């Protein structure tokens, strides 16, 4: 698109206008323009901050080498600051993390796991999927050469299990979803026939809705959800379409609507409608930890590992961070003009931070959630080979809540790792209270409902991470609520003298990497402004 096309005697398309604006004015203006034209409301990302002009010699100490910290260091270095990162772990990434074969992980309480996965296999204990609208994270993955591949979130061939329906037998998502839509469409169509919607819509609209329901629910000519070719094209056939003599398919019967109701299938359907779980989703090739590594390459040589921060002072017109080397026990201080602190509040609330009483209260006001993830390695991809399940999630009302099949390496031979548990609510505490081996055994037991005769039989080994016992976070993510947001959020994100906080906890995209990225960009932009004004 160019000016010539625009002048070629027709009105420019919206896309042409946007491209022209983008070329002329840069992404920030482009974003605003897109907003006006009714697009791009799925992200606040307006492109990298392009900071420049730092006063020569100005130092910034960044606490934490997670995504927020490393990105802050990268962008501030580009702007001309001298940056030093202090990190508690002996690796970059923070919660962005994959456990591979050969890795050793010791949780709080001292339980140590030596991960025995085959080469290439991994468990992502923390983040594991990236929504298409997490544009800031996607931007930096591309900019930093981190290769992504599709993450399969929804899979019609995957299974849904509940103790409350079908005698506890797992059913195909595809069948339950089709039968749910079909039955609801039939009932609604019946309601229209019975003139139950007369007060809600005109006769004309009711007729249109009736026709729409027939199409949406795969109803027959009589507006019934019946055993038919049409319905079976959704839910599957008793005998699938084939070739030659027996090529003709045999349609299948729908399940009784009561069973469909009991299955709670709408909850799972609704999950996939949530903007955070809609297709397309992504994952890095080779494990989520590849993002942390990719970010670390951008701040090569700037990270000091194994440093446990014990205090942050802002006295004397500078920032002084005291930290202990977890290997040697040596106590050191690092001085800087400014500090970007990405330490999770669960830990920061235990550190002596020299800040305003308001920020101090905010740091202490936000508790952390909990979750447990278990990775189970199997000898082969029986879910693919025997059941045609390629990626995606099978759901259950058991404590493990789901199992997720690997989205990478499909159609390959050899061992593969399934996410065998991703717990929520009370189940997270229950699982976290077990030893790693107990968690693995429980996950294996509960998940075997989906693949009896395979799951336990072809199991090789596992790994389990309970976030409440993760030494560097003591929890999963910041748990805000309406009251704490109102009382503390703005104080938490404000620049406090020479200190600014960043991380998922300083965002409204809580518990997502995108939140850490957006928070980091916003924090350093304001810190840079403050530094130039000083």
């Amino acid at each position, binding site marked *: 698109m160019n000016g010539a096309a625009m002048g070629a005697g027709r009105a420019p398309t919206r896309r042409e206008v946007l491209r022209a604006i983008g070329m002329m004015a840069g992404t920030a203006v482009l974003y605003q323009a897109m907003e006006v034209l009714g697009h791009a409301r799925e992200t606040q990302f307006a492109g990298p901050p392009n900071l420049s002009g730092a006063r020569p010699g100005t130092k910034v100490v960044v606490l934490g080498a997670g995504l927020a910290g490393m990105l802050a260091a990268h962008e501030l270095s580009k702007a001309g600051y001298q940056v030093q990162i202090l990190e*508690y772990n002996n690796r970059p990434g923070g919660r962005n993390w994959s456990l591979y074969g050969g890795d050793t992980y010791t949780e*709080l*309480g*001292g339980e140590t796991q030596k991960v025995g996965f085959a080469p290439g296999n991994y468990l992502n204990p923390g983040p594991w999927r990236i929504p298409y609208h997490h544009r800031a994270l996607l931007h930096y993955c591309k900019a930093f050469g981190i290769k992504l591949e599709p993450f399969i979130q929804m899979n019609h061939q995957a299974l849904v299990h509940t103790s409350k329906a079908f005698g506890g037998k797992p059913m195909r998502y595809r069948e339950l979803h089709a039968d749910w839509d079909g039955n609801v469409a039939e009932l609604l169509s019946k309601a229209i026939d019975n003139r139950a919607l007369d007060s809600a819509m005109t006769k004309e609209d009711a007729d249109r809705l009736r026709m729409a329901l027939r199409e949406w629910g795969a109803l027959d000519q009589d507006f019934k959800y019946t055993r038919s070719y049409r319905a079976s094209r959704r839910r599957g056939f008793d005998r699938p379409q084939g070739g030659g003599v027996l090529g003709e398919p045999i349609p299948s019967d729908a399940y009784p609507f009561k069973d469909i109701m009991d299955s709670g299938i709408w909850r799972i359907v609704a999950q996939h409608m949530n903007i*955070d779980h809609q297709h397309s989703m992504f994952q890095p090739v080779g494990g989520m930890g590849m993002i942390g590594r990719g970010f670390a390459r951008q701040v090569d040589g700037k990270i000091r590992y194994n440093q*446990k*921060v014990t205090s942050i002072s802002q006295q004397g017109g500078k920032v002084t961070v005291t930290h202990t080397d977890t290997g040697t026990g040596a106590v050191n201080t690092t001085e800087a003009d400014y500090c970007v602190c990405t*330490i999770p*509040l*669960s*830990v920061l*609330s*235990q*550190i002596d931070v020299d800040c305003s009483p308001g920020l101090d209260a905010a740091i*202490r006001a936000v*508790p*952390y*959630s*909990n979750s447990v993830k278990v990775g189970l390695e199997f000898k082969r991809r029986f879910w693919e080979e025997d059941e045609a399940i390629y990626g995606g999630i099978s759901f259950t009302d058991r404590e493990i809540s789901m199992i997720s099949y690997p989205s990478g390496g499909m159609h390959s031979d050899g061992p593969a790792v399934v996410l065998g548990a991703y717990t929520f*609510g*009370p189940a*997270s*505490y*229950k*699982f*976290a*209270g077990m030893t790693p081996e107990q968690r693995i055994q429980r996950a294996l037991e509960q998940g075997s409902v989906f693949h009896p005769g395979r799951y336990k039989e072809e199991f090789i080994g596992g790994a389990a991470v*309970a976030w*409440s*016992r*993760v*030494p*560097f*976070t*003591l*929890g*999963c*993510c910041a*748990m*805000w*609520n*309406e*009251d*704490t947001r109102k009382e503390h959020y703005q104080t938490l994100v404000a620049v406090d003298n020479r200190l600014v906080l960043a991380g*998922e906890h300083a965002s409204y*995209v*809580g*518990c*997502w990497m995108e*939140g850490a990225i957006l928070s980091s960009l916003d924090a350093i932009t304001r810190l840079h402004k403050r530094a130039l004004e000083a």
Partner: protein
Amino acid sequence: MRFVLIALALLATPALAQKAKAPPAPHPGAEVYQNICQACHMANAGGGEGAGKIPALAKNGALEAAGYPIMVVTGGKGAMPWFRGSLTDQQIADVINYVRTHFGNKYRDKVTPAMVAEMGVPAPKGGNRGE
């Protein structure tokens, strides 16, 4: 070891007073402790330390005034979330009584659900998680 023996003795007394053969009923707070608290505070109530610390509940002097654990369990503290709403006042009383009489703690005064109702922090509204 002395603390453990005393704790066992306290537990055993009511059981003996009932029927000779009945096994001592597990403390009603034990299950809550195992299902919730030990996720962080550990099975031996010893806590843990990494970048930050999870306090040990074993031999913990801060448990002496019953009002303190009531406040912390209902309202949370630092990284620890509130449990008002996810546990009943009875469960909260049970687990506090359990911890205050086990793991080397020997505080004899009992916490009741009524005390939890009176002194507890109400659950916040609109709490959420990203996922």
